[in-house]
């Protein structure tokens, strides 16, 4: 954006008592815009990754085999009942340290796992657990009579799962999946705790220099509002598209 547009904008907001002078500083503006981009990247990577984790965990949980379901159950319980920040520390400060040391001992060069990747991994695993619970509830809420009807029509076990049970389960689970994804977008703010340069982190860097906390928080909230709004819009669109007569409103 050219200065000719920014300067009057900043002046106008100054009249309202809001100090947005940082956008006139090239370095700070670029850092902030980069932060917006990093937050977006985090969301775009963690959404599919968390869904994949969710499907995998739901498959393990409803596999009916105790040696698969029990570890998955334990993982779900531990993840649900501990703070994300502590999980992030356990992963980044402990596992990452161990991996780095091990690689150094082997002489295999530097650790390829960046803080950014750790945030993607931890948030995906965390939210994947919540997706798995939603999917499992969806699978369980498919009526028995529907499954029996499909079986009586000669569907094999695999066909039954792929054509009847899963399509219905995904539709039942969709509202809570979208809810989880909105939560996930908000959760990416935790990345700033391990110095990943997302929008929160860049804002902290700027406001420690300029003392314009309120102004930057408004921008952060707008950005997160936009992202969560897009996610719930996409969710509603998907719900409309997948809607079947006779199910839901």
């Amino acid at each position, binding site marked *: 954006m050219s200065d000719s547009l920014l300067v009057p904008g900043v002046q106008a907001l100054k009249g309202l008592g809001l100090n947005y002078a940082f956008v006139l500083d090239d370095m700070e503006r670029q850092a902030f815009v980069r932060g917006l981009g990093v937050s977006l990247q985090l969301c775009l990577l963690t959404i599919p990754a968390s869904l994949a984790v969710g499907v995998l965990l739901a498959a393990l949980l409803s596999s009916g085999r105790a040696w698969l379901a029990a570890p998955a159950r334990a993982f779900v319980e531990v993840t649900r*009942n501990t*703070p994300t920040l*502590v999980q992030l*520390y*356990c992963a980044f*400060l402990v596992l990452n340290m161990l991996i780095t040391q091990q690689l150094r001992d082997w002489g295999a060069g530097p650790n390829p796992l960046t803080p950014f990747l750790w945030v993607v991994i931890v948030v995906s695993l965390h939210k994947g657990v919540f997706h798995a619970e939603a999917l499992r509830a969806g699978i369980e809420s498919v009526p028995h009579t529907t499954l029996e009807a499909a079986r009586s029509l000669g569907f094999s076990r695999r066909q039954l799962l792929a054509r009847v049970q899963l399509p219905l389960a995904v539709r039942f689970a969709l509202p809570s999946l979208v809810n989880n994804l909105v939560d996930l977008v908000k959760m990416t703010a935790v990345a700033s705790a391990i110095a990943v340069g997302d929008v929160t982190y860049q804002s902290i860097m700027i406001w420690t220099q300029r003392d314009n*906390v309120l102004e930057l928080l408004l921008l952060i*909230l707008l950005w997160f509002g936009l992202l969560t709004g897009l996610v719930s819009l996409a969710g509603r669109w998907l719900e409309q598209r997948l809607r079947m007569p006779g199910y839901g409103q």
Partner: protein
Amino acid sequence: MANDAALNAPAAPWRHVAALRNPWLLAGLALLTLLGLWSATGTTPVAVALLWKWLPSLLRGLLVNIEISVLAVALGTLVGLVVGALLLSPSKPVQRLARLYVQAFRNVPLLVLIYFTTYVFPFEVHIGPWSFAFPDWLKVVLGLALPTSANVAEIFRGAIQSIPSAQWEAAQSLAFRRREILRLIVLPQCLRRMLPPWMNLYASITMSTSLASLVGVHDVVDMAQIASNTVVRTDFTILVYFTLLALFFAYCYPIARATRALERRHERH
């Protein structure tokens, strides 16, 4: 009596076995045995001995987290019930305003709210000639109370609206007044329905108190970091962070279990 004893006899060993199959009890017993063995033979690993030394500080830190969570949820519940009542107000503008409040505070990342309350509020408040310190932990309480109130408002609205309107009509036809219907019929049922989601909320706010360490409150996470940076031993760092995980789990998992038990009991009714 003799019959009772005969009937109870086979049940007793079975119950004994069931207790032994409880994985939590087994893990606890194994840990105790290990600790006993170490202290008896004097071969306690250095990291464990150090953890034992730091444990009181960690627990004191956890107490700070618990205090913050209890205060935030208490405050949030009070405000949330008022906002929830406003959500059901017959006046449209009031309803819309309450809706906006709930939407806004449910869609904000908690961390951002905590930064907000920490940096925007002053560190001292002057009321007339008196000035009070406004410590960071109190600001975190406020930062967590805001989203709590929005969530409690939603829980309250959901509970009131889940009571069939036929009950209101039936009570009206029995000549109850509006206030009496609320107090004697609707609210008692609502309380029962609100309890499980409210407990869930409490557990999630407790977990969010860990974010307080990022704004300089000396909570359990902060204490673990201090311990790890003071001792500087790889094995101790591993141990202290996983102890942190275990402490939160030990506090939140029973709450989650109780919530689920309550939900199951309500389903049966």
